[in-house]
């Protein structure tokens, strides 16, 4: 594979090449890994915005409105929408484009749908890699949409700089239950579908929970009522995003997040390598499995046998 040519084309903003490189990393191929290794230094720090929330709250519809604003303001805007794969069939229906008319109106917007694949309910393990390709491509802003069920909202916090949690007036009753997960991770809370009843009662409720949680007034997440459908209050949301971005930069919060992210990724990659080599050792002993030997003893034996030097080869076997 002609990596240099790929890079050259990416820098020329060639979308056919961009799509192909993303496929390479999405499928976790050897070439994809090599590409990221080689050109990591070429990336710029795009501003990454996560949008999460329960199914059907209007994340894509809202994103469609944000795309319009950001596409006018920045040279290059990208959207990555992650949808769950079926754990039974491995298949997925990726339907977020349905509500994103604006991706077709602006030539500087790139949108990619991603299936979560192996990771249980969470983000695809390759999502971070896809974002890195977009950063090598040189995009200014990346939106990441994920459905907030279980693990994925925590994952989205880890791979983005700012998280918008989207709720609807009907979420009122379930916020108590969600509190543990979703209330923790938002930098901005949006009550979408505020064209409906109860929207302001719910936003007051969310505000009261957040005020208890945060001491620093400047960092207490704002709660904003919008209607993506009617385009109400979207500009207010945009200016809150820009405002928070400035604060995050000034306070060094983004820098810190990126540092933590890099460390976590190294840990993730190492874990993946180890698991693969453990699996290989397990295959070797499978045949002579003595049922009277304790699993601890077996583990200690395996540990002694792992050849750390060959870890990289195992990684490349994929």
């Amino acid at each position, binding site marked *: 594979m002609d990596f240099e040519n790929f890079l050259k084309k990416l820098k020329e903003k060639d979308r056919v090449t961009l799509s192909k490189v993303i496929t390479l990393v999405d499928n976790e191929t050897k070439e994809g890994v090599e590409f990221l290794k080689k050109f990591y230094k070429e990336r710029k720090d795009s501003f990454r915005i996560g949008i999460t929330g329960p199914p059907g709250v209007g994340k894509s519809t809202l994103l469609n409105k944000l795309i319009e604003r950001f596409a006018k303001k920045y040279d290059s805007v990208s959207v990555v929408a992650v949808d769950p794969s079926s754990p039974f069939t491995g298949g997925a229906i*990726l339907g977020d484009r349905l509500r994103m008319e604006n991706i077709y109106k602006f030539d500087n917007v790139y949108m990619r749908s991603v299936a979560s694949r192996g990771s249980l309910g969470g983000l695809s393990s390759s999502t971070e890699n896809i974002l890195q390709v977009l950063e090598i491509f040189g995009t200014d802003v990346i939106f990441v949409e994920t459905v907030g069920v279980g693990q994925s909202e925590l994952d989205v916090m880890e791979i983005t700089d700012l998280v918008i949690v989207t709720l609807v007036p009907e979420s009122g009753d379930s916020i108590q239950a969600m509190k543990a997960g979703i209330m923790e991770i938002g930098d901005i809370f949006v009550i979408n579908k505020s064209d409906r009843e109860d929207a302001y009662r719910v936003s007051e409720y969310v505000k009261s929970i957040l005020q208890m949680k945060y001491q620093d007034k400047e960092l207490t997440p704002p709660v904003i009522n919008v209607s993506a459908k009617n385009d109400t209050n979207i500009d207010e949301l945009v200016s809150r995003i820009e405002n928070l971005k400035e604060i995050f930069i000034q306070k060094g919060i983004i820098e810190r997040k990126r540092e933590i992210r890099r460390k976590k990724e190294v840990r993730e990659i190492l874990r993946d390598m180890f698991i693969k080599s453990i699996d290989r050792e397990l295959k070797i002993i499978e045949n002579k499995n003595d049922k009277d030997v304790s699993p601890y003893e077996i583990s200690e034996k395996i540990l002694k046998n792992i050849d750390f030097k060959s870890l990289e080869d195992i990684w490349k076997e994929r």
Partner: protein
Amino acid sequence: MERKIKVLVAKPGLDGHDRGAKVIASALSDAGMEVIYTGLHQTPEKIVKTAIDEDVDAVGLSILSGAHMTIFPKVLKLLKENKREDILLFGGGIIPKEDMEELEKMGVGKLFGPGSQTKEVIDYLRDWFEKNRK
């Protein structure tokens, strides 16, 4: 990791219902494929932009409006212009036999008439993938 077959299912034209497209989208997903579903009123330009940005293996169009002789060739042409004629274009709908033959001559893949089983489509895509993308 086993590579997934990625398919774009779209419904071009102005006629107003997408039941057929939805049925095929969920059948393909049940067969383990990753399906990009874009809904109604897709123009050839949008279809091709989506196919390129999503880097799909195949594009399936459901056409009932009788516009097949304009839409299929247009999509083929745009794919070619973007050097992505390697993407399989197939479809379904009410298409007279002569038209089907002419479209297939142009380079369109298999066209499934009314009453086709979803299994035929799945087998066709798997077979194509095996031969062209492995």
